[in-house]
């Protein structure tokens, strides 16, 4: 019974997943990169990107998803996102203040505008996405550990 669960869900779900996972991730990147002109931003974009990996894990079983994004990579991306955010904030010291918006602001409503905000969005999405996926992996792996013990 658990062997079938390991292999994932039915054929219909697997086919649709193969078609839509890329679109979900693309949608997440769109929300993330347009965070300064429309609602969304780092947190929402990161959650949607993490959801694409969770979708993969739900449809195909945990081995397939862990092959694409192993546990060590999750931990690495999480710390990298946090350190990137902190170093962008520290670079504001060059302008004199912590967290200063020191890149040129450009014109409003364009994609390359608003100073450090798009970079901060990318850093936040890395951390949030990797963090959510790590939480999901930890809870799923914990359950399998306790099942294997019995």
């Amino acid at each position: 019974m658990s062997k079938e669960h390991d292999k994932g869900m039915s054929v219909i779900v697997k086919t649709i997943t193969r078609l839509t996972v890329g679109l979900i991730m693309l949608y997440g990147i769109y929300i993330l990169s347009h965070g300064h002109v429309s609602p969304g931003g780092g947190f929402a974009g990161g959650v949607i990107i993490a959801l694409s990996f969770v979708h993969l894990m739900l449809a195909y079983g945990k081995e397939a998803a862990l092959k694409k994004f192993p546990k060590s990579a999750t931990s690495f991306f999480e710390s990298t996102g946090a350190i990137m955010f902190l170093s962008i904030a520290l670079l504001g010291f060059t302008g004199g203040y912590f967290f200063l918006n020191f890149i040129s602001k450009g014109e409003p409503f364009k994609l390359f505008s608003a100073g450090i905000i798009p970079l901060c969005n990318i850093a936040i999405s890395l951390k949030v996405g990797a963090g959510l996926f790590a939480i999901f992996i930890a809870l799923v792996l914990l359950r399998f550990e306790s099942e294997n013990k019995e």
Partner: protein
Amino acid sequence: MKTISNIIPLFVIIPLASAFLIPLIGKKKKWICDLVGALTTFALAYLSVYAVHLTRMYPNLVYSVGAWKPPFGIAMVLDGLTVFMLVTVNIVAFTIALYSINYMEKFTSKWKFYTLFLLMLGGMNGVIVTGDIFNLFVFLEIASVASYALVAFGTEKHELEAAFKYAVMSTVGSLFILLGIVFLYSYTSTLNMADIANTLAGAGNPNIVVMISVLFIMGFGLKAALVPFHAWLPDAHPSAPAPISAMLSGVLIKSLGVYALCRIFYNVIGINPALSSILMFLGALSMVVGVFLAIGQWDFKRLLAYHSISQIGYVILGIGLGTPLGIAGGLLHLLNHSVFKSLLFLNSGAVEYSTGTRDLQKMGGLASKMPVTGTTSLIASMSIAGIPPFNGFWSKLIIIVAAVEAGRHGYAFWAVLASIITLASFTKVLKYGFFGTLKKKYEQIKEVPIFMKLSMIILAAICLVGGLLLLPEVNEVFLGKASNAISEGVNYGIMVLKDIK
């Protein structure tokens, strides 16, 4: 003045940067995490002592994050009370980081411990330094969530149960705080604490401020473990590993609970006699209930946890009195309690490291085999019981004298009674735990390793010289400035915003 105030965000940046670096570099070798932890806390302790020196020249330093001037942006304020709390938190955190180099060898993943510990420290520093009320809530949550994970660190049965109880109750407290912030924002439509103080001062005392005060007393009282919000503390503090118990009991309930209460009720909302008597009543209730529940305990750490409730009652009683002498006594007792309660928890951790038990009835005569632990435990017990010339005596004396001066003889009586029962309770600890006859199965125990000894000796030395903080020259630079920052009340709003144009 602008360049020197760049020091203020460092109190938040340094622990957060180290906490994010440790998962990247500290997983392979253990000594890297120890080194990073010790260096970070040493740098923070040094910076906080330097900040004391800074406030002698500039009374109120305001730092606007991102060059957005308050009230639009987040401001970080460094005044007398801030510096007092920073010194308390960071020096105790440094000794605890030293202690955990040796103690945490028994647990499996040291890098997880150091990450969470530094995150908690960064959150506490952020609560103390910030001048914006929602920023205070965010840092309070960072420190709280890190502490839930740290209480459950060993993942034994009773640790998980205690962590769950603590997490649920503390989350409810945070919800009340957030509700209070929502009401405050809807009334004043600004988030900067100085600006709120100015707005509330000009508006009289409408009913919504009463509701906000009640919500904040419930929320921050739960974080500070006042009776009747204390039910999580006797389970959470004994179950955590010993350095985390020392951190929780020594600095977390003070930084998140007592400091935030002082800041909001004195500087932002403004104290009035009703609020003052509520605080004094809750403080006296905590004092008495804590000490009566503590006396029957046989578990060493559970006894210490109940005594924490009692001593925080002393601090709230002193601060709630409202007179300058009372506030000074309360703040001095806050510093003293951080030092000697951390030392007592570290002692209990050392005893558990050597003998493997926390039950007082099973121990006995340990002072002959563990001289450093026995001596420091004697010093800390005499401090908490209020025996001269240790530091606990001075602060309790000032609180009792201030209560008598303000005409509250009933509270002074309860304070003296609680002090006597504390003395009885710690005599029991010393008799059963350290002096007396050594049981046969503990013949082979040795003294604890070097870093644990070093941290306990540092804290004991601070216990010995703590009374010197009352000398006139030292008082006006350190303790006097802190109590002035509280007593000036809602003038905080005018003083912080006056240089911003």
